[in-house]
């Protein structure tokens, strides 16, 4: 048995992981979630804003991170629309506009009363990384003369009086790296004391925890937090329980459970093999 595991081709492990993820998807395995305090902090930041508040939604990610971040971006969009907040979408990533368009598609299909220019607007992508944030905090027009559709900001009801983003009631950032949440904290939330919440990839989450709670109100870390956020929304808005589109994160937790169990088993097995190998070498 020991020799079998020592000589095991790593491709069998890839196959096992593939099956561990594929089978729960094929069988539609899903579990209820209990929102953690951190997730509820983020949830309440949007929920407790008065209706019609101005929320800047910066979606700084690309298709490579879509599987992990789209569920939380969709949940943020739905939540803001439920609360009738004014939404200002933008992105600092060149591949970001299609990701923002997905949120616009949610508004068009699930909130037909939401009107472009009056309830939400998409500012699109601007090149310049953190320089864009720096300028937006003082002079929006220096970078944004028109929205993503090419309409002059002076002709859009939501933006014609918007000078900068200092008066935003909340910044919601979904980020897959740089520029992303860290830059928003450094150039907007901290110097201008703007309330901010973030959703980020698992890899990026630990780097944001030191900013909580003074500079960042809360963080959604990876798909687990997205699923908990969806659950929190379903607890509050019960009609969402019938909306399968609003449960993308919850669907992804079935594969997570089986995949993690396999990973834990492999770590234990790897350690057993390692220590067996050491003891055999010592006894020689």
């Amino acid at each position, binding site marked *: 048995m020991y020799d079998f595991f020592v000589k095991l081709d790593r491709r069998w492990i890839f196959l096992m992981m593939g099956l561990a993820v594929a089978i729960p998807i094929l069988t539609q395995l899903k579990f209820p979630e209990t929102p953690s305090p951190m997730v509820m902090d983020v949830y309440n930041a949007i929920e407790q804003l008065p209706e019609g508040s101005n929320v800047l939604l910066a979606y700084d990610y690309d298709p490579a991170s879509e599987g992990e971040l789209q569920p939380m971006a969709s949940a943020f969009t739905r939540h803001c629309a439920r609360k009738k907040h004014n939404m200002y979408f933008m992105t600092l990533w060149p*591949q970001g506009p299609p990701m923002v368009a997905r949120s616009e598609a949610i508004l068009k299909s699930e909130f037909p009363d939401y009107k472009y220019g009056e309830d939400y607007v998409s500012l699109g992508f601007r090149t310049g990384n953190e320089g864009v944030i720096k300028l937006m905090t003082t002079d929006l027009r220096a970078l944004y003369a028109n929205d993503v559709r090419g309409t*002059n900001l002076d002709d859009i009801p939501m933006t014609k009086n918007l000078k900068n983003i200092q008066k935003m009631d909340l910044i919601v950032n979904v980020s897959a790296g740089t520029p992303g949440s860290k830059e928003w904290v*450094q150039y907007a939330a901290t110097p201008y004391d703007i309330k901010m919440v973030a959703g980020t990839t698992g890899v990026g989450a630990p780097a944001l925890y030191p900013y909580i709670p003074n500079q960042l109100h809360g963080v959604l870390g990876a798909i687990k937090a997205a699923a908990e956020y969806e659950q929190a929304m379903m607890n509050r808005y019960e009609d969402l329980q019938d909306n399968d589109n609003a449960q993308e994160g919850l669907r992804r937790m079935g594969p997570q459970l089986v995949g993690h169990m396999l990973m834990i088993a492999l770590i234990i097995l790897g350690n057993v093999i390692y220590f067996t190998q050491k003891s055999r070498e010592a006894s020689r």
Partner: protein
Amino acid sequence: MKQSTLVWTALMLLGGGFLVYRASTAGMGQVYVRAVEVDPEGDAAGWTNEVAVQPNQRSEPDVRLSWSRTIGLWIAAFFTFAIFSFLWGDNAIYKFAEAVFIGSSAGYAMVIGFWDGIIVLLFRRLTPGLMRDSFLPSVPDDATISWWFLVPLVFGLMMLWRLAPTGGWISRWALAFFIGATAGLRLIAYFESDFVEQIRSTIMPLVVMAPTWQVTLGHTLKNLTVLAGILTCIVYFFFSVEHKGVVGRVARVGIWFLMITFGAGFGYTVMGRIALLSGRFEFLFDDWLWIIDPVGKRLGM
């Protein structure tokens, strides 16, 4: 025949046979669209947008099969398998997918950067009339030339001078400005948010009392853990004193804190990677193969 060649051939034949069977029986991998008329603004000509619809709406009168989007879907599925094939070993199909990805990403970023940086930000300010008549009809009639934008134009040209056979040093002036300005911006941002504010965040009560003057054990332990973690990790990275005796023991505790942080980071990374894999599998099983239907896109078909 080599064993790997045999395995690949068998997998290809099995996969191809399944696709033929699936396509001929239940249907798969098709994208349907509906034409939506867009109202023109002012004197501009109107146009038609094609909006993707769910496959179960395909029998509706104004819905048709979109060949371009269907081919795009199949290409996406092919490239997903091409990248997955690296798990078996490095191969030509993977290399091809990798090259296409890098090339298209670079091309896309270049086009977006040119449009956004040169056209929208620079030429719009320097030649508003020309831009209004050509690419940017939303430029207002009273827009004036911003002569200050000659500075970034000149700096941009100086940067491009690197490509010339002589006088490459000219680009250093623009580069020096860029590095200096970026360093200054970042220094202030880091100093304020990652130094001053982080110190402020760690000034916290070591014993947390409830309004009833009872010690809140959970919060107290949390604050003590944060303080211990900060102090021991700082000692670990303090190399002016040799790590032995008390300093060595404290630094060792710091290593434990760091290891726990790395472990949490690893756990998060595993979660992230599995989420990405399940996202890709959902694409293959749902959008392409039509094996699952989690959001009811094909109900009633």
